[in-house]
Each structure stands twice: as structure tokens, then as C-alpha cells.
């Protein structure tokens, strides 16, 4: 993938290196972390967080945090998110220390298990408190792993969505599509890890690579911001003759992309094209033109390009976007995107060691105040996080009814012991008062469902299903080959 060579000297802009940490939570998280290490991620600290000492010991991460020494005694959580949650709470200080001094924190976790589901939201919370931007890579379990795990995963996912700045969610089931049917099961899991690793690395590269047209945090978050949304991510690299086309095709082939079909619904699409010194303008033009066919006219394309000597004659394309959750397809940030969404949060310098919970609320709410006044629209992420993270925790203490946006967290934290299971109706009341949706209602265009109507003239005949495929659907559609 990305070749590393130590003797390469960075061009100017060196001072812009952003401290990044990649945190793997739980077993699946550390697997993904290992993969990231093996694939090579430069200029990022790697932190493994787990309850299971054995798994932690085998991790290749430089920094390891064992959580829940008292709760689990060095064993795993046995798939109980409650335990994972308690473990994380118990070791909150250690986690906080591990996360300090990073502006961007990636959290990798496999949802559905104990540690991943239980601890990841806490870690994300602590990371946010530390003032970092948090991007979560979450894998959802295979459907064969059972309903219960799926439910646990979904609950955690919705919590992470509330806490983190962005959640990039990989459905393991979809990974299956990328693995040959006869490949071993370890390969299926490895594919998920590899996809995570690839995504993390390309995002890091995206931000850190000195660009001709730079892509910064602001662009990244413009592309990623959506509530409970679905993250679209694609990365492709090619060095063939037709590398612009091939790289794009590859990027669109990513399981999170759904062959670019999803892009049609996105309001913002971030594209970075990187290549060696040989990259030509016309290549970039071709590529962007092709990409343009996949998106709507009013989609904002955040374009960045970078020339990187290490790329040799390869050309890579990274596409990042997000879809709003189904009930709110109308892009909520139509005008926000034209200016920097969210300043890379300053608090690290103001407050290097945010150790007390109260501090975080100040930071969050304070920052929210700033941005609000400048933009006139509440930042949905910031708005959600205080409520989102606290409500579920205080659930067991019935004397405290769901608080208005600014509760005094000092009281809440200690009470916040068990019960990870978030009642479904809880987050909703917070969401509802969100303003300014109707305003953009005209942007809500139903995208015609393409899939089921493609049997053409065989519509009314008996379907021909062989090996699980409906052969009446054109082959090129089933094989995701773009023909025009």
C-alpha cells in the first residue's frame, strides 16, 4: 500500500503534523490495531485497551492499557458489555492518561462483544473530554454471531454515534462479499481488519500529507458530519496505464461504498487524489469527472490533492462521505459546509490534562457557545454529546430524571454505575427539538430504488435463481461492473 521510506524528507509544512492516536478497544479492536501496525502507520501512537491480559500481551501496540483489573481480574468480559463498561469506568484514569495529547483519536472496536461494546463508548467519551476529535471505526458482528450480539452492537453503535465526532461502521456481513466463498474464516475477519487499517491510514495520510490543495480537519468533518449517519468510505490505488480510472473504480468498490450508488445521496463528498510527481492535471480531471457522475449536482465536493514523492507512479483516491440517518435525509448542514465546520478543538493547549469530568462539560458547552454564535446553528454533535452520554448512565438512579442539556455532571458521574442498555426511547427526546430541518426539505429527494426493478422484461416471469443469484438481473449489475 503506502510505502515507507525513512530517508524521505518531508517538504515544508512539517510543523503541521497533528498528534494522532489510534486506540484499539477489546479483542477485535486490538486485532485491527495489529493490522494497522503491520501495514505501517507513521506518526501515530497506538494504544491497546483491553480487559483480557493475554490478548493485551500479544498485541503489538506500543502502549497497552489493561482495564478493569478489579472487575475482570485480567480475564475477558465473557461477552458482557456491562462488565466492559464497569472495567472502563474503573480504569478511567489510566485511559485518560493514555489518550492525552492527541488532537485526533481513532478508536477501533468490534461491537457485539463485552469489552468492545462496553468500554468503547467510555473511551470515546474520555477522548472527547480530553478535547480530541474522535473518529470511531466500529465493526458490526456477522449476523451468524447471533441476535443478541447484533442488538448489543446496535446499542453501542447508537451511543458511539452520539459521542464520537464520526463513526465509520463496517458491517462484517458486507465484508463477506469481498472474501472468496472458499476462503478461510480467518480471512473474512482479516478483511474487516484490513479495511479498517486502510481507512485509518488513508485518513491519516489525508490530513498529514502536505497537499497542493490541502484537506484539513474542517473538510474531513464537513464530509463526516451527520447524525447517526452511515459513513461512506472508499480508497483505491492504482499504477496501471489507466490509473485514474482504476483507482476510482477500486475506491467505489469498497464495501462501504456500494459501488458509488450511495454517493448519490450524500450532501458532501470529500475526495483526495494523491499521486507521485508524475500525476497530471488531466488525470485528476478525468477522475473528478467520473466521480461527478456518481454524485448529485448540488453535492458539495471537497476536493484535495497532494503530490507525494513516495507514491512513485501510483495514484490513490480517497473518498469520504456520510449519509444522514434515514429519517433525516435532508442534509442538515447545507450552508455550514461552506465554512469550516468545527475548528480543530483548541482545548488541548488550554487544558492539557482534563482530569475532572466537570471540565469536559465546560469545554463542550463553551465551544458550542462559540460555534453557535458564529454559525447560527447548533452543532448537532456537540449538542448531543452531553445529553447522550449521561442519560444512559444515570438510568439506574431513578430519583434523577433526564436532565436538561446542562446537568451538573459532578453528581452524575459517581452514580453512573451499571446498565449499559440504553432504552430506545431515551435518546429520542433529545433529538426531537433539533431545529431547522424543514428549511431544507426541498433538498430531500427520494432516490429511486434501482435494485429491485432491474429484471427488465423478465419482470413477470419466474425468476431464475442459481447459486443464490437472480440471473434475470443483468450480470454487469450483479458483478458491480460499471459499463458507462
Amino acid at each position, binding site marked *: 500500500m503506502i510505502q515507507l521510506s525513512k530517508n524521505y524528507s518531508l517538504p515544508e509544512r512539517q510543523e503541521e503534523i497533528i498528534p494522532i492516536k489510534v486506540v484499539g478497544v477489546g479483542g477485535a479492536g486490538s486485532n485491527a490495531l495489529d493490522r494497522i501496525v503491520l501495514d505501517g502507520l507513521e506518526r501515530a501512537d497506538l494504544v491497546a485497551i483491553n480487559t483480557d491480559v493475554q490478548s493485551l500481551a500479544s498485541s503489538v501496540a506500543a502502549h497497552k492499557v489493561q482495564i478493569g483489573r478489579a472487575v475482570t481480574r485480567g480475564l475477558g468480559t465473557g461477552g458482557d458489555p456491562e462488565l466492559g463498561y464497569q472495567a472502563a469506568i474503573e480504569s478511567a484514569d489510566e485511559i485518560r492518561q493514555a489518550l492525552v495529547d492527541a488532537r485526533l483519536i481513532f478508536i477501533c472496536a468490534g461491537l457485539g462483544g463485552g469489552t468492545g461494546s462496553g468500554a468503547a463508548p467510555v473511551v470515546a467519551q474520555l477522548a472527547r473530554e480530553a478535547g480530541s476529535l474522535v473518529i470511531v471505526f466500529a465493526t458490526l458482528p456477522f449476523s451468524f454471531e447471533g441476535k443478541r450480539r447484533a442488538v448489543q452492537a446496535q446499542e453501542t453503535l447508537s451511543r458511539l454515534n452520539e459521542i464520537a465526532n464520526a463513526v465509520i461502521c463496517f458491517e462484517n456481513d458486507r465484508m463477506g462479499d469481498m472474501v472468496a466463498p472458499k476462503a478461510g474464516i480467518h480471512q473474512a475477519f482479516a478483511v474487516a481488519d484490513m479495511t479498517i487499517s486502510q481507512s485509518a491510514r488513508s485518513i491519516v495520510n489525508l490530513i498529514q500529507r502536505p497537499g497542493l490543495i490541502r484537506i484539513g480537519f474542517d473538510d474531513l468533518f464537513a464530509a463526516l458530519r451527520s447524525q447517526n449517519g452511515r459513513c461512506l468510505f472508499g480508497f483505491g490505488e492504482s499504477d496501471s496505464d489507466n490509473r485514474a480510472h482504476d483507482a476510482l473504480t477500486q475506491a467505489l468498490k469498497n464495501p462501504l461504498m456500494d459501488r458509488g450508488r450511495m454517493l448519490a445521496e450524500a450532501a458532501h463528498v470529500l475526495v483526495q487524489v494523491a499521486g507521485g510527481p508524475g500525476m497530471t492535471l488531466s488525470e485528476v480531471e478525468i477522475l473528478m469527472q467520473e466521480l461527478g457522475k456518481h454524485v448529485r449536482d448540488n453535492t458539495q465536493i471537497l476536493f484535495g490533492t497532494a503530490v507525494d514523492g513516495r507514491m512513485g507512479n501510483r495514484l490513490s483516491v480517497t473518498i469520504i462521505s456520510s449519509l444522514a440517518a434515514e429519517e433525516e435525509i435532508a442534509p442538515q448542514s447545507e450552508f455550514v459546509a461552506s465554512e469550516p465546520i468545527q475548528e480543530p478543538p483548541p482545548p488541548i493547549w488550554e487544558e492539557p490534562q482534563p482530569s475532572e469530568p466537570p471540565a469536559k462539560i465546560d469545554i463542550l458547552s463553551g465551544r458550542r457557545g462559540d460555534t453557535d454564535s458564529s454559525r447560527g446553528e447548533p452543532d448537532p454533535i456537540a449538542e448531543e454529546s452531553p445529553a447522550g452520554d449521561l442519560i444512559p448512565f444515570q438510568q439506574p438512579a431513578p430519583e434523577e430524571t433526564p436532565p436538561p442539556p446542562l446537568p451538573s455532571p459532578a453528581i452524575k458521574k459517581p452514580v453512573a454505575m451499571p446498565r449499559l442498555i440504553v432504552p430506545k426511547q431515551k435518546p429520542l427526546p433529545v433529538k426531537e427539538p433539533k431545529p431547522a430541518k424543514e428549511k431544507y426539505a426541498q433538498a430531500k429527494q427520494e432516490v429511486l430504488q434501482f435494485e429491485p426493478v432491474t429484471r427488465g422484461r423478465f419482470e413477470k416471469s419466474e425468476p431464475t435463481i*442459481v*447459486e443464490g443469484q437472480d440471473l434475470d438481473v*443483468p450480470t454487469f449489475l450483479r458483478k458491480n461492473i460499471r459499463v458507462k
Partner: protein
Amino acid sequence: MVGLEIGTSKICVVVGESRPDGTIKILGVGQAPSRGVRKGEIVDFETAMKCVHEAVVDAEQKSDVMIRSVYVAAAGSHIQSFNNRGCVLLPEDRDEIDDQDIEDVKISAREVSIPAPNAFLHSIIQHYHVDGQDGVLSPVGMLGQKLEADFHIIHGVRTRIQNTIRCVKELPLDVEDVVFSALASAQVVLTQHQKNLGALVIDIGGGTTDYILYVDGAVKQSGVLAVGGDHVTNDVSMGLRIPMARAEKLKIEEGSCILGNCLPGETILLKDDSGFAGKEIERETLNTIVHMRVGEVFELLKRTLEEESFINYTGAGIFITGGCSLLNGIDHLAGEIFEMPAHVAHAQTMSGLTSAFENPQFSTAIGLIKYAQAVQADRPRGRGIGRIFGKFFSGMR
């Protein structure tokens, strides 16, 4: 003798006569575009009947023969096949195998469970075994105690086959027999020598792809995949967003299964109905669509065939026939995928209308005549013929 094939894209009627020397002369071919047929099966009875009538009238005019009874080809995804062995023990007091034993062993081979709604279409003898001696071709008169026989049994859903028969009977014409279409095609596409060497016949028609595999002179595998030329057309129509009729024409005139054979950016100019220049289409795009579909059909067939090992014994290679075999480069693609020589083939060893039998579109209909000839030659020998279901036909290889 008349062969009638109710295809998905066209209905064709071939009238032929059997010469005393065993050859067949084609007297006339009638055809009519088919409507109301999808994937080899009738979906609109009335319309299909009209089309069959048209085709029959056409054939009567061209051949100057009054058509009374026909052999009908059956296709459709419901047709399945398997191999089974029947076994009879001769009574203690007799050790010479006679005709009755042959019938018995056939009945015993059929004593297998096929799904309740299904009916036997063919039981084709592969080999006899007498007291463990393999590869006996004609056991009558041989001495032995135990007679076994391997049969290739083709069966399909009874009611669906009956629909075809009813459609013909309403005309009214008599149905002499119903023949699995690939079996009929193979009769004229392959020579006996090729059957012995081992050959795979793939009959790609409008709605279905039928295949039959001969090894050692005997049918080993056969079946139907309900994907055919219509699917290619449909794909082209959807991929290029042009109407079906246009897509069909484009497929026939320009389509090719070979990729990378055209200049980059080479385009085809579509003329609209008034003759004015319309849409431009990239040739490579068209070819990709066709290639994907046809390639997939072959891949699926290959996978199906590889479930048993017979495909490895095809010395003569692959013979592609049927209307869709006229696609450019289809033999190359088949050869590539199956990794053996592939040919586009049409009916052989006929006399009469050359244009008819040299067209792979008519392979099945002509094959029906050949089949009829073989059956009729058998008939004096007292084999049970004339029952549409549960035919006891074994002379045909």
C-alpha cells in the same frame, strides 16, 4: 416428419422426410416470431397458440405438405436429469437375456423418486452390465444371471410439459412425442463419432440454455439453465438504456463476446427509426455487457458440469448451437472458459434446404426430425412408443 420447436424468440417448424438410405431431406421450414413464451415456457397460452399456428401454416406453404402430427421440443428450467442404474435378476431356469429383461431393467431404473409433480421425459440407456461385465451395448441374446443398466433419466414438471402439448393439440395437431430440446439438437449437431469421443452440446436459445454431455457415446449429463439470448438483449437494453428491439438488433449486428478487440473509444452510431443519427455507443461497453452475461452462463454451466467428472472426458470438445450461438466470438469465450476447443455447430448430414440446416437456429427443430427418424426406425422392433410420458425409448444414443 415434422419437428416443432416453440422457442422463446421464435417458433419454427421443420418438415423433413426420411430417405430409404437413412438420410433426411428437409422439405421446408416455417417460422414465426414467438410471443407469449418466456424462458422456453408458455406464459400466454392464446398468443403462443396463434404464433404456433402461423409457423405451421408457413411451413405447410413452403413445403407443400399437410402437417398432421409433430414432434415437439420441450425446454424450461424445470427439466432436470440424473443417472441411475436399474437391475434385474433372471429367473433360475433361464440365463439368456431377452427383450423383456431389457424392459424390466428400464422399469427398475425408473424406480427412483422424482418429485411428485414431475414426469419422465426420457430414459436414455448408457450401458448395460451383464454379471458385472461392463460396457455391454446390446445384451439381448447374451447369457447371464444379472442384468444391470445405467440410464440417464430426464424429467420435468408434468403440467408444464402438458402446456406445450396442449398448445399444439388445440391447433389441432397430434403430438407424436415430446423431446428434450438439447437431446434433439445433439442428434444433428454431433456425429456418432463425436458422441463416442465425448462432446458437450450447448444450445443457447432465446430464453434458455440447454446442454447435454455425451461421453463414450452415451448421455451423461443434461439440463437447462433458464438464461438465454433474451437475457443478453435485456442486459444490453438496460446497460445502454435503449429499447429492447434496438438492443436485439444491436446485439445481432454488432455484439461480440470478445473484449479488448476494438479501438479505444470506438463507437457505434445508433440510427433512430427515421434514419437519423441517434445515440453513440461505445463498442467496448456493448461487448463488456455481452461478455459478462455469456461468460457467466458458461461459468455456471461449467460449475454444474464439474459436479461430476464427465466433463473431463470430452475429446471432441464443445459444440455451441441455437440462435444465440451466432454471437460473435462465442466459441472463443466458451473455449477460454471450458479450456477445451469449442465450435459453433449446425445440423449436419442433411439434404434439402441448405440454408435451413446450416443455421444453428434450426438445430433443435431439425434434430427433432432426426430423432423421429430414429424412433420410427425402432418402432417395428416393438419398442414401446407413443406414450408421451414414460416413453421407453432406448435405441437413441
